[in-house]
């Protein structure tokens, strides 16, 4: 299951990911100062999720070396997090309903 046996050096990939992450950070920072209305938080969160995905897939080796079980663990953690957020908000967002 390990990736250390792969022949070609992954360094190029690592540096590419690193550069992408830095660019994304810069973009997030700059976009925050532009008026996008309701899309400001959307853009910020989409970029954050892209960054997190890149880190998980390549730096944490989920892409090359990760087995299905690892992915299952990640997916269930996210799933239960959304259960917590979603069902809690189901209360707050409907309190004003008539």
């Amino acid at each position, binding site marked *: 299951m390990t990736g250390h046996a792969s022949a070609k050096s992954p360094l190029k990939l690592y540096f590419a990911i690193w550069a992408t992450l830095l660019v994304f950070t810069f973009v997030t920072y700059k976009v925050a100062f532009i008026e996008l209305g309701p899309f400001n938080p959307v853009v910020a969160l989409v970029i954050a999720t892209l960054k997190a995905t890149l880190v998980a897939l390549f730096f944490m080796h989920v892409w090359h070396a990760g087995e299905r*079980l690892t992915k299952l663990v990640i997916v*269930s*953690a996210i799933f*239960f997090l959304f*259960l*917590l957020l979603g*069902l*809690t908000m*189901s*209360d*707050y967002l*409907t*309190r004003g*309903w008539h």
Partner: protein
Amino acid sequence: MSMEIAIPQPVERENYLNNEYGFWSWLLTTDHKRIALLYLVSITFFFFIGGFFALLIRLELLTPAGDLVQADTYNKLFTMHGMVMVFFFLIPSIPATLGNFLVPMMIGAKDLAFPRINLLSWYLYIIGGALMLHCMLTGGVDTGWTFYTPFSTNFTNTKIVEAGIAIFIAGFSSILTGLNFVVTIHRMRAPGMTWSRLPLFIWAHYATSIIQLLGTPVIAITIVLVAAERALHLGIFDPKLGGDPLLFQHLFWFYSHPAVYIMILPSMGVVTEIIACFSRKRIFGYHFVAFSSIAIAVFGFLVWAHHMFVAGISVYSALVFSFLSYAVALPSAIKVFNWTATLYKGSIHYDAPMLYAFGFLGLFTIGGLTGLFLAALGIDVHVTDTYFVVAHFHYIMVGGAVMGYLGGMHFWWPKISGKLYPEGWAKLAALIVFIGFNLTFFPQFLLGYMGMPRRYYDYSHMPEFQVLHVLSTAGSTVLGVGYLLPMVYFLWSMRYGRPASDNPWNAAGLEWKTSSPPPTFNFDKEPVVTWEAYNYDELDAPVHPQEVPVGR
């Protein structure tokens, strides 16, 4: 191993109990079986502390006026009873003792995946427990085990922070146990031990571990927030700042409802093993029982706000949570039906563990069905926060979980200690517990529907409730005797009990194929599994091909 004399035998096979001696051989052990025993001693200690509080509570309620203790003392008693019983007895009860002992053995592993983390989790438990004891001895807490804000953050003067830290630490112990089980079950199964050959005890523990892993961190952070609000004057739930006390309840119950399943699922696993063994049958609908455990673990996370139907949540949210609550009732019902069906055309033996399992079936059924009342929105409004709720969750958590725990202790005691307990006494104890339990808690259903609120130390305004309270208190003394008995004869049997054979019940499962007590690494030779779970057919066949014990 057929000697009848009760004196210690001069030549004993080396096992996990006698391979090392001395204080440090226990306190520094990484053997899952020894750690299980460390846990057993510690949780028994806390069980009797919690039980002592319970008896004082019942004594106070014998008369309507508050005459035995002060209001403050009573509030601390039920708070400490709840905290000790929930966090220091029920949560670790079966997983940390029987689970710790049996999970590696049942899947044919030498130990849990992380033995040192296993020991660490016991130490965390002990540190948490010591803090909790210190907290109790130096003033205690009076918020109820639920810590509701803003009472806990801004109003009470009692030791919230210390109790919070104690529970936080104990929570980590619980997380680490769950982590160890998940990794062990995934990575350490013996060759041939496929997922569908796993004993259902393992499935139940796997489901339990999922809840421990994903639920416990949420209560940990919730307690941190409460402690921060008290100690550092942060304000997250504070209504004065515009904070919402209901947010605390959401976060609290996100863990604390699934926590009920941490307590009951392992017990269901135990009962499944016992019913299969003593009806000499493969469990009816293996896959349905296995998946219902997982379903309970997952659905258990979807229903928490049914504790908050009158708390001021939105009507629409309440509808959703009520609906989902019925969804989680279903897998439990499926389990009960499958256990019942397993008895059909069995060959049923009435040994003590089976009596406990029957007790479990009856009490859990009542506990589960009264849950339907509480999930029904219209009725919940009336009976929530009354003795109806108290009775309901005691039927699940004491009638169900503790009954299963005791059944499991009897079932595996020969394996754990290498000794047989006195069967007659064990049957008597099962009967006493069953009667005592029902006498204690059934009247509380009636009290609840009549309107007796929880956490009242003085009911002199409603003396009409006294008769039922007296019945309940009487039952609690019977129950106390019932719980003391097993401890006495288990201890007695350690010295005077007859030696147990490797497989006194002729039960299926890898743990019975090694010696009693097992050697340190569980099996002398790595087991290879070639049979299905619960192969009682083969075990009971006149000539059984599988009867060559692996552990020899």
